[in-house]
């Protein structure tokens, strides 16, 4: 990797200040950024680690019953600390990568990176979560703007993610055999006011909501309600591990399984 300055502030304000430097880059758990640096594919002037900011750590339940996860909270922490309050989210976190990844990688890093095959974007979008930053709150529906693209401004830090807790939810992940990212992952959440279905791994546009499935499930919450429903293969990813048609098919299968798991 190229040389860079390293800073590890202990407050959000100090982190924001450090990120104001030209070509400074925020560092979450580094599970994407560090390999990128090692391949010399990025050359930030400074890395600003967010892992020393205590107010961005941990999982808590807010007054309205929603679960709030600090932006620098590792997947392993979510897997254990959200297990009782939001089991489907904890299960999602527990399926990311391997133990080493889960003990370094953070929710803020994953959501800000918006890898089209990452698990968290499906959990955030499927839950209708709110992304809180140092400057504002962004609804999940407005946050993910396509592959590796989000509504975040330069230097903006995800301080926490607030998840409303659904009546039932399930994350169904079909593994890409090499990376074990999601070849297709479906996060389904059933709220009193409706069902949300978010799909990761499948689309060239990154995580998306499958609205036809949501409507069908709002009418009848059963796997059979999805009979005959398919996402359009046109925008699906095609690569070594699966064709567009295969991914489109898996979206249906994984969604049905999520419904079955919630029924």
């Amino acid at each position: 990797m190229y040389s860079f300055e390293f800073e590890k502030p202990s407050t959000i304000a100090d982190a924001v200040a450090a990120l104001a430097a030209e070509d400074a880059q925020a560092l979450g758990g580094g599970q994407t950024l560090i390999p990128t640096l090692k391949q010399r594919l990025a050359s930030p002037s400074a890395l600003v680690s967010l892992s020393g900011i205590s107010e961005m750590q941990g999982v808590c339940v807010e007054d309205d019953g929603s679960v709030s996860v600090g932006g620098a909270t590792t997947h392993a922490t979510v897997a254990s600390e959200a297990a009782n309050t939001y089991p489907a989210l904890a299960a999602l976190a527990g399926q990311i990568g391997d133990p080493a990844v889960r003990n370094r990688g953070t929710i803020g890093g994953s959501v800000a990176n918006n890898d089209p095959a990452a698990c968290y974007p499906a959990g955030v979008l499927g839950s209708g979560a709110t992304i809180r930053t140092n400057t504002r709150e962004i609804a999940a529906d407005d946050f993910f703007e396509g592959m590796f693209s989000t509504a975040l401004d330069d230097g903006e830090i995800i301080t926490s993610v607030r998840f409303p807790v659904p009546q039932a939810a399930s994350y169904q992940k079909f593994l890409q055999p090499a990376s074990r990212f999601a070849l297709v992952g479906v996060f389904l959440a059933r709220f009193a006011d409706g069902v949300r279905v978010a799909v990761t791994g499948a689309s060239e546009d990154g995580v998306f909501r499958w609205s036809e499935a949501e409507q069908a499930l709002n009418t009848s919450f059963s796997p059979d309600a999805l009979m005959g429903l398919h996402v359009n293969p046109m925008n699906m990813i095609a690569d070594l591990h699966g064709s567009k048609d295969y991914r489109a098919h898996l979206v249906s299968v994984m969604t049905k399984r999520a419904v079955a798991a919630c029924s």
Partner: protein
Amino acid sequence: MPKDSGIGASSKRREDVRFLTGAGNYTDDINVHGQAYVFFLRSDIAHGRLKSVDTSAAEGMPGVVKVFTGKDFEGVGGMPCGWEVTDKHGAPMQEPPHPILAQGKVRHVGDPIAAVVADSLEQARDAAEAIDVDIEELTAVIDMKAAAQDGSTLVHDDLKNNICYDWQLGETDDAKVDEVFANAAHVTTLDLVNNRLVANPMEPRVAVGEYKRGTDEYTLYTTSQNPHVIRLLMCAFVLGLPEHKVRVVAPDVGGGFGTKIFHYAEEAFCTFAAKACNRPVKWTSSRTEAFMSDAHGRDHVSKIELALDAENNFVGLRTNTYANLGAYLSTFSSSVPTWLHGTLMAGNYKTPVIQVNVKAMFTNTVPVDAYRGAGRPEATFQLERVVDKAARELGVDPIALRRQNFVTQFPYDTPVALTYDTGDYNGTMDKLEAAADLAGFAARRAQSEANGKLRGLGINCYIEACGIAPSNIVGMLGARAGLYDAATVRVNATGSISVMVGAHSHGQGHETAFPQVVADMIGIDESMVEIVHGDTSKIPFGMGTYGSRSLAVCGSAMVKATEKVIEKAKRIAAHLLEASEADIELKDGQFSVAGTDKSVAWGDVTLTAYVPHNYPLEVEPGLEETAFYDPANFTFPAGAYACEVEVDPETGQVSVEKFTAADDFGNIINPMIVDGQVHGGIGQGIGQALLENCAYDENGQLLSASYMDYAMPRADDVPFYGVDHSSQTPCTHNPLGVKGCGEAGAIGSPPAVVNAVLDALNSGGKAVDHIDMPVSPSRVWAAMNG
């Protein structure tokens, strides 16, 4: 009762203590005072003409010692190929040069263009980025069949085409083969691909070159399976150095799987550069470099045809294979699709007429060479897939069809050049049927179906030829090396023993198993025997470890040297006991006079050998013997495997639920180590069958250049294995009666897995004939919905 020491005991692997406690000494652990680091600038273009390589900016960068390009190696030899194959018309193979750094053209992504030696690796990388390379991109030659057409772009401009050789084995009369097929009651045909693999040993390759100006001596530390072979090739063919001035050390090596047999450009470079820079030079491969510079494996495209008579006897077999050699000839690449592949096409069957045709192709891809099994998995996969397809087409039991055609009389001369010395294929199949509980399969299938899964049973037989030999025969077949091995047994004065062996241990457990043999022969504790390997300055000239040869070949040399030691020790004992040498018996470390209670201990004899006060004058002092051993034939391990899979009909996901191996390895020295070898081999075979796929796009870009896209098998991809090694027909021509077990699992398992998947799909009403490996979920789903 299992033995607790010596031959046949599952002695715990003594080397594991240092490996598991972080006390191993790998090449990357070796740092020589004053060393510099080299970074290779590698081509990101698959095929192109080098217009210019401007290093001027790089040379002035901080820390740079020297920048090398292909020009610095003009007049230096290229990387040699160790086996000259003769084509079916009697002409030698086309053998293009393979320079250390690219000259004139780049021929694959990863081909090294320049090398920067600097004080630190980061400085070397910085400087490499300042090298200005102008490449005129040419059409990449990727598809083998297209590459074979007249008018194809040439990988090597000086060759007449991209075909290294067009080779044939077995029946030479095409008309006779045609007649067999024309008269057959049934012909089964199958087109298939044996997928390209990357070996991916846990330890990437490393080389450290050192030059001592005062004595004009070189040392190369390298991740090699065969240090003497590297020294010979590098000295005699590449750099033109006197062998006695060059020491090659391969210390602990973290897995080889074939890919560390070969002499690589980076080794020659570090040795050369150490003198040119007058500093030690170190190279450590990154994982990315490993994907684009370690020799790959397999990559065959084949058509196989099996002819059967009305009674389902195999009457003819014909194969046509395109074998990818990549851009250059790696050290033993030419032998893999020919003498290690065509010769195995008879398998376990007495097919009377066999014709094997192989076109070996140059393409703009990483060179392909031996990978665990090397040619034998490719042969087994074709044969066992076509036999399974024939059974399905004929509606007969796949085990019965195999049994009916087994070779049962030994020795057996195959139509493809081998003589199987011994075996018991029906007996081994009996062991498999019991160990795999095949009788219970129907109930397991019903249980799977109740869970919404399709369950399939795949059967496979294999034979392999290990310990390739003898040297005079392989020499006639084109080998440019001998294939003997050597051992020196050095008995120390106090009775402990150092055994210097030509074989190299990089996971095989030699350090445990070899002493079991020597200790058993003498009757002393295993802990008194230590193996020394991996250093040309310490060991006799041996050929190293590959092709499941170590115990059968080097172990035999070790036995012969130990026999010489015992013979001499008996003469000394006879003197001490004032008895006739013929009356001396050795048992449990005691020399005794037959029929008396007179005896002398091993340690007293060894001490006498080195403190020869009371000593037979006609006997030389000391107790050290060397033996070289050149086998009379290959050894022929064989086995039968059963794989059970579940297929998720909704997603095409395959899960291996049960895997049972019945192998005949002849006599076994350490059953635990043999079980472990088979486990590892099956793991790699399941990897090939279900997961691993080295893929290029049409422009020669490597699509699977990291673990993000190259799927290695993980622990949860494989089941607990059942292994049965009780079928034992000892090898008839080596002193231990051993065969070789290192590659069997990787040879025997891929067809078993694929056969099982197809059985599962067909049981579910999906008439699927074949799916190419890796049998990934997407491919299974496509086949089911095709």
